[in-house]
């Protein structure tokens, strides 16, 4: 697993963690992000249970785990939140922020650890990182893809954490951390967005929010980070994309040929 500082200003910085070469083949690759403000940390989408040791190892390069103040789970997926109990057990002072919608569901990951959550209200909220005086903002991203979902904006670094939005399933673990050629990057995002994103109207609402923020960097939970003009390129590509589709042609033409109708044959 690699980690890289993607923004740094005095004692405030962002670390991108990911591209785990040694992970189990069946695991989808994820990016985790660590915000460090002075000697306090905030971890974004800490990842799955399986990769906890590797993520912890990267985090420990920058900050002591006991100095992590907050943990953000953008939605309920296992690739995002199944490591939660291990972080919380290691440092019970961590506050976990997650959409209010999912708090009771995430508790199913508890593994015997007592988990408590700050449920982020639907319209989002401001949150300070520890006692640093720096604020981050939870930005609604409902139905992008999860029905209770938040992106996160950090005005200090001008970075927008987009969660699964902008996600790409990249071909190998040496693939570039930043998008270098947008048009050739599309092939790794297209399938992901078409299938995982359930609502075009929610997606267009989210595009408006990102445009209103106009960040200089957009960091997704899978794939590569967008900078500068590539963000607008991505938003425009998204506006023209047909989402929530799966190849169900056969169903329309011959319903009896479907595997789920086999009982009737």
């Amino acid at each position, binding site marked *: 697993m690699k980690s890289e500082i993607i923004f740094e200003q005095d004692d405030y910085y962002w670390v991108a963690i990911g591209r785990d070469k040694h992970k189990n083949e069946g695991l989808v690759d994820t990016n985790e992000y660590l915000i460090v403000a002075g*000697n306090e940390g905030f971890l974004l989408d800490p990842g799955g*249970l*399986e990769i*906890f*040791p*590797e993520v*912890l*190892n*990267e985090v*420990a*390069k920058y900050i*002591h*785990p*006991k*100095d992590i103040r907050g943990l953000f789970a953008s939605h309920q997926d296992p690739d995002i939140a199944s490591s939660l*109990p*291990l972080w919380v*057990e*290691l440092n019970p002072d961590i506050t976990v922020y997650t959409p209010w919608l999912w708090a009771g569901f995430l508790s199913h990951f508890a*593994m*015997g*650890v007592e988990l408590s959550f700050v449920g982020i209200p639907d319209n989002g909220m401001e949150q300070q990182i520890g006692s640093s005086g720096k604020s981050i903002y939870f930005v609604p991203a409902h139905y992008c893809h999860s029905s209770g979902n938040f992106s996160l904006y950090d005005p200090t670094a001008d970075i927008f954490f987009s969660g699964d939005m902008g996600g790409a399933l990249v071909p190998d673990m040496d693939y570039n951390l930043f998008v270098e050629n947008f048009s050739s990057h599309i092939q790794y995002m297209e399938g992901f967005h078409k299938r995982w994103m359930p609502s075009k109207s929610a997606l267009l609402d989210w595009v408006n929010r990102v445009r209103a923020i106009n960040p200089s960097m957009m960091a997704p939970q899978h794939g590569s980070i967008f900078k500068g003009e590539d963000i607008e390129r991505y938003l425009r590509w998204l506006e023209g994309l047909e989402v929530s589709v799966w190849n169900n042609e056969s169903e329309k033409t011959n319903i009896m040929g479907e595997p789920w109708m086999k009982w009737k044959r």
Partner: protein
Amino acid sequence: MNKTLQDINRRLNSLNSLGLDVSHESKSLSDLGNRLQVLAINGIVLASKVSGDRGHSLVTLTSLISKLPNEINPILKNIRTDSMDLAKDVTNCKIRFKKFSQYSRAIDILLKGENHNSLDLKSLYSDNFTESQGLNPVISSLAKKSSIVYEIILMLLKDSDTRLFQLSHSIKTLNSLIKRIHYMNLSITIESSALKEEGKKFNGLIEKVSELMNFLEQHAKILIKDIESGFVLLEKINNRRIIV
């Protein structure tokens, strides 16, 4: 996962499937007491038609058998509850074990420190590092978590040990009940064989009761074998030392 952990994991898996096996086994016995009672009540009806002393003792024997399901049913129920609890305990233990092994793997990776250019292994143990600089506190805190989790495993295993003891006790009681029923069945055989045509009516009852008891005996043997291997597994898990 290192070899010791793999070994423990393997044994936990065996213990888990063992709990499920016992629970499954005991499920197949659940209506046995009721079946025996129906047989015995039919026997009472038959015996009441036999006149004289013989008829009297046959009524006594069959009604004794008819009362035994009241003793058998709670034992079977206990076996079922204990075995289900055992399977549940071990499943819980498996979940905690997973957590433990992830902590243990984290310690391995941190100690290797392959990516920690500025820190070599020796320096991890030196006192020159302050809390926030060195990885030492991370590792010791993880090690502490690991040992706590390991203690939880041992605690759960102790529970499993108790359950296995309870199970073996239940089965011993069950076995002595089976013996008593076999004995009464034998007495009915003797009493009824002294009768002529009338006595033949009892053959079906005798055969069915002995069939039921053989079935129960067979399953009790399987359960005892399972429980013994459960004890062996617990012993092996308890004897492993975890070095982190």
